[in-house]
């Protein structure tokens, strides 16, 4: 259908189309579309397609909960079964957003109870969820199946108890990295004895003891359980008992890997792992003792994702483990493995696509710990399929990065964090401009970039000029003037999320994006040189943006602000706390 055709001929064409394609058929066809980007495109074709699409849509993804109201969503999409919502700006993960900022799920649930009584799935990221909301959810939605809470706050284990008690058809309970009040592990015992539908259970980030017998019985009777991630209180011999009851697991998160085992227990555990032939994801391994890692080997043949975030392994232990993981595609490690460990990765993981290296001691200034440019280099030589990297290090060079992206030109996500703010190339003492210049010039598919180190405006000139597919950019302690931000806003056509902290960008930079912000999801600027005046101008010129300003308590002169700008059809939010000023 030619989008340039005048409107009524498009409609009559679609009317003809509709005559050939009854609505039900069109809806049926469109219902097979999964991607929400495809669906958005489809809805723009014509009125008939718009309506067919909205009636057939079952899942909705809302990247910023304040960009729209629940009423608007419900009005457009009457048949939703699954909702994914993201709330606070990402920098709230790093304590840059005060408590009680908002993004409460409450008002959404109230509308959903009325309009989507058959809601089955709720996936929330960075939202505030209270126990009352969880109880409401458990009570009002009879068909509720899947709850996933990532980086949320506001609830306690009592809320989880309500979910376990009442949601008879629950298939998924996925609680990750939330700021929650962990009162007790009793919630797990609330699953009724005749409850058998669970397929996904992840409580790895909770710290209270659960009643092990209840967990064992639960795992026994839930024959479809595919994903089990337990917390640290589960010991190795308890794990063994769970594994023999759930050999069909595809994802396993172990509890504590630190326990004295006698020879019998050791071989039983090894046998249990040997029985897990379907494991593709493994995590946990808290405080893993090198002595016991070999019990895992029989289960690693099909492993594609190994998450060693909680196991401070040394390089020898990692090397031995990797020998048994021939299919590894994603690896998360702590930097305790060092550059030597990364060399082992390079040697043993030819199919590796994603590598994340986290710092074991992020607040430690000593350069001798952790990983450096040589580890990253080694991986780039050995793992040519690498396209996603998150790398925390204490030193880096321009030359290394240039070589790395030459070896791996297919990066889609390049997130480099040189932990000392504003640190130059440690060999040449120059800014790291050329490093990121090489990244954006070579990696044409780059979607997400996080920069660090000493950076001048030149880095951002490169980004604006070359990063044509860039969607997300994170900047901290970088740049010399407004020109840097202007380059980015003027250059990157696909930019959706821009988050900036502690950079010398002021009103001129902010206002250079006037034409851009409505095509983006959001902009965050904190500890920059923006003034209230600049924000007011922006708000005045662009009424379809919400321009929210918070006073920055940490700033020395009391004049700095945290600015959060986002497009919205909902108008200024009505639940803004007193410290958030909407201009």
């Amino acid at each position, binding site marked *: 259908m030619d989008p340039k055709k005048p409107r009524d001929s498009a409609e009559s064409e679609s009317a003809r189309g509709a005559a050939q394609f009854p609505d039900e058929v069109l809806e049926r066809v469109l219902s097979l579309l999964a991607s929400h980007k495809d669906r958005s495109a489809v809805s723009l074709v014509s009125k008939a397609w718009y309506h067919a699409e909205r009636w057939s849509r079952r899942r909705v993804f809302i990247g910023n909960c304040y960009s729209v109201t629940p009423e608007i969503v419900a009005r457009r999409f009457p048949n939703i079964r699954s909702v994914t919502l993201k709330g606070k700006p990402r*920098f709230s*993960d*790093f*304590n*840059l957003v005060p408590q009680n900022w908002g993004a409460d799920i409450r008002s959404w649930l109230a509308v959903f109870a009325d309009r989507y009584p058959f809601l089955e799935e709720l996936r929330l990221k960075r939202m505030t969820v209270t126990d009352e909301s969880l109880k409401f959810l458990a009570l009002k939605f009879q068909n509720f199946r899947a709850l996933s809470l990532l*980086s949320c706050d506001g609830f306690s284990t009592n809320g989880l108890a309500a979910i376990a008690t009442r949601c008879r058809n629950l298939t998924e309970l996925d609680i990750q*990295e*939330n*700021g929650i009040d962990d009162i007790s592990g009793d919630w797990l015992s609330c699953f009724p004895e005749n409850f058998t539908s669970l397929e996904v259970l992840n409580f790895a*980030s909770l710290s209270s003891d659960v009643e092990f017998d209840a967990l064992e019985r639960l795992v026994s009777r839930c024959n479809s359980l595919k994903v089990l991630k337990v917390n640290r209180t589960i010991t190795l011999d308890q794990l063994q008992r769970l594994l023999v009851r759930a050999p069909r697991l595809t994802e396993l998160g172990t509890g504590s890997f*630190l326990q*004295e085992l006698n020879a019998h227990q050791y071989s039983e555990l090894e046998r249990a792992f040997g029985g897990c032939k379907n494991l593709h994801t493994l995590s946990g391994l808290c405080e893993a*003792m090198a*002595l016991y890692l070999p019990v895992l080997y029989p289960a690693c043949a099909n492993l594609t994702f190994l998450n060693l*975030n909680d196991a401070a392994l040394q390089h020898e232990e990692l090397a031995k483990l990797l020998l048994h993981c021939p299919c590894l595609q994603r690896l998360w490690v702590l930097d305790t493995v060092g550059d030597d460990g990364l060399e082992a990765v390079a040697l043993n993981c030819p199919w590796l696509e994603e590598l994340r290296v*986290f*710092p*074991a*001691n*992020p*607040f*430690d*200034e000593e350069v001798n710990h952790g990983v450096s440019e040589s580890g990253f280099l080694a991986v780039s030589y050995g793992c040519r399929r690498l396209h996603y990297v998150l790398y*925390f290090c204490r030193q880096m060079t321009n030359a290394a990065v240039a070589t790395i992206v030459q070896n791996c030109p297919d990066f889609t996500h390049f997130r480099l*964090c040189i*932990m000392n*703010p504003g640190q130059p190339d440690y060999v040449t003492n120059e800014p790291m401009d050329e490093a990121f210049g090489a990244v954006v010039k070579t990696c044409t598919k780059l979607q997400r970039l996080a920069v660090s180190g000493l950076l001048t405006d030149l880095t951002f000139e490169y980004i604006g000029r070359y990063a044509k597919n860039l969607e997300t950019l*994170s900047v*901290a302690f970088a740049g010399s003037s407004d020109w840097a931000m202007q380059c980015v806003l003027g250059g990157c056509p696909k930019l959706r999320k821009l988050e900036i*902290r*502690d950079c010398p960008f002021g009103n001129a930079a902010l206002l250079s994006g006037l034409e851009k912000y409505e095509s983006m999801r959001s902009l965050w600027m904190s500890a920059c040189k923006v003034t209230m005046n600049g924000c007011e101008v922006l708000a005045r010129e662009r009424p379809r943006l919400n321009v929210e300003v918070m006073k920055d308590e*940490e700033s020395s002169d009391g004049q700095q602000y945290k600015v959060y700008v986002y497009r919205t059809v909902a108008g200024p939010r009505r639940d803004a706390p007193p410290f958030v000023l909407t201009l």
Partner: protein
Amino acid sequence: MGSGGGSYEKDLNLEATELRLGLPGTTSSTAATDQEPEARQARNNKRSLVDRCEEEASEDASRALQKDHDSAPSSKAQIVGWPPIRSYRKNSLQTKKAETETSSSGIYVKVSMDGAPYLRKIDLNVYKGYSNLLKALENMFKFTIGEYSEREGYKGSEFAPTYEDKDGDWMLMGDVPWEMFMTSCKKLRIMRGSEARGLGCAV
């Protein structure tokens, strides 16, 4: 100050002369909660005078150490939200750090020596391994231990270093890996004379 507090003493001097900027609200709460279990652990029913003095010194030192670890790496003020680690991970990292490095849940065990008038107390976390610990014990009680061999135990002296494990059994030190020893050791006893030789001999 005894040898148990030796390394703390060194660190205490360093910290005392350093300027430190702690931002308001930077994990001072974890400092508070971590101190409680430490205090509880340190207050024992039966303690000698020497023990008590040593422990108070260790506590002061570890509290100072703890403040250092919680607030900032030496001279820099800690920047809020940097490095960009998720708050959840940061909290679990910090409690881990506090636990292992400042021994707020420290592994304090009594050490008795056959024939000595009073017991001592040491923190196992301070030592890096068996040889480190044994040297410290040799210094503390003024004796020599002898060479360890798997077959014969500690040959060449009338002393044998033993420990009581979680099951209540008296074990010869050195047989199991250091980490395992640290988690299972309840108290130490330096045995002497024929009893010692009995333990060391192959059966």
